[in-house]
């Protein structure tokens, strides 16, 4: 059985909200994949907690996007009835979990950005976005602290954990540039005081990353060629597999409810 994908009128603000919501949903889903599989029970809970924080952020952003779009869509339709090409998340967040070090490096890269991003967005002229930012900032601050502590312990741990953490940093590095990228439509929102200029976050982000990575006796790659495409719907092959699981229930039993 197939269910039609929804159509979305992506005004600049709707697109902007979907981009952030998709980041949170996809990363949150990735973390949920650890449920019952983490190296220890304590970390299983920590990963699920962070996943639920992100899911909560996604829900608020989707709901707000639905309200702005006013086209009959809602948070569930955004999550369950869009295909890969309609997703607007960063390539970073859809990358597979890999081992625990890889998951933590991905979380660390994103949380270090999200912490700065949401803190800055608390000053948005859009009251709804500012309110979402105020709630998300506290969550992201904790995600950053938790992942930073792990980066230090993995990097400065055993030869094995060091090699795994360094490998993850090297592999995921090319996906970090996309966080600071913005197009003309976002530029218009920045000019209107609704969005913040993500590019301005790169220097403070790099400072945080550099401090933690050096404390962890790890190194950042010198190669600064960056991958992008997620923001406009060009994704890695991983997202399709993720969505097929995330959406399987609603695609198989359309409209199913609890």
């Amino acid at each position, binding site marked *: 059985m197939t269910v039609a994908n929804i159509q979305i009128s992506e005004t600049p603000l709707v697109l902007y909200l979907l981009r952030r919501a998709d980041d949170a949903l996809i990363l949150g889903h990735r973390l949920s994949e650890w449920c*019952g599989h983490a190296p*220890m029970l304590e970390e299983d809970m*920590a990963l699920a*907690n962070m996943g639920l924080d992100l899911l909560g952020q996604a829900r608020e952003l989707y709901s707000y996007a639905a309200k702005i779009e006013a086209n009959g869509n809602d948070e569930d339709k955004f999550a369950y009835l869009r295909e890969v090409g309609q997703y607007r998340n960063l390539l970073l967040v859809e990358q597979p979990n890999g081992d625990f070090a890889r998951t933590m490096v991905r979380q660390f890269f994103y949380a270090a950005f999200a912490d700065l991003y949401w803190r800055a967005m608390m000053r948005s002229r859009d009251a709804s976005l500012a309110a979402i930012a105020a709630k998300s900032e506290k969550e992201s601050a904790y995600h950053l*602290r*938790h992942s930073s*502590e792990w980066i230090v312990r993995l990097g400065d741990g055993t030869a094995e954990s060091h090699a795994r953490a360094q490998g993850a940093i090297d592999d995921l590095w090319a996906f970090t540039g996309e966080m600071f990228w913005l197009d003309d439509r976002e530029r218009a929102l920045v000019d209107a005081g609704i969005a913040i200029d993500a590019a301005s976050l790169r220097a403070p982000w790099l400072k945080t990353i550099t401090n933690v990575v050096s404390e962890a006796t790890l190194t950042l790659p010198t190669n600064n060629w960056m991958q992008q495409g997620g923001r406009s719907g060009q994704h890695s092959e991983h997202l399709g597999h993720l969505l097929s699981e995330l959406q399987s229930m609603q695609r198989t039993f359309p409209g199913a409810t609890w």
Partner: protein
Amino acid sequence: MATPNVPLWEVFIRSRNGLAHKHVGSLHAADATLALQAARDIYTRRGEGLSIWVVPSSAITASDPAEKGMMFEPAESKIYRHPTFYDVPEEVGHM
């Protein structure tokens, strides 16, 4: 899930209206910092606390369960030690 070879910690939480930290359980963590984070993630998910203590389980000296007769039974017959024979005035408040 394998039991990790890392130290055990006892967790104490002070609740919103609580006057003292109460023991809520234990967890495994490599060091104090991670123990505190794990305690936050495991024991305060439903808004249970405003303050957390973590203590290495190895730092606790416990009474011997085999000695409970000697340790605790002598107190059982001394009901006069319970403040149940007089009324506490309202104004005194929480004791």
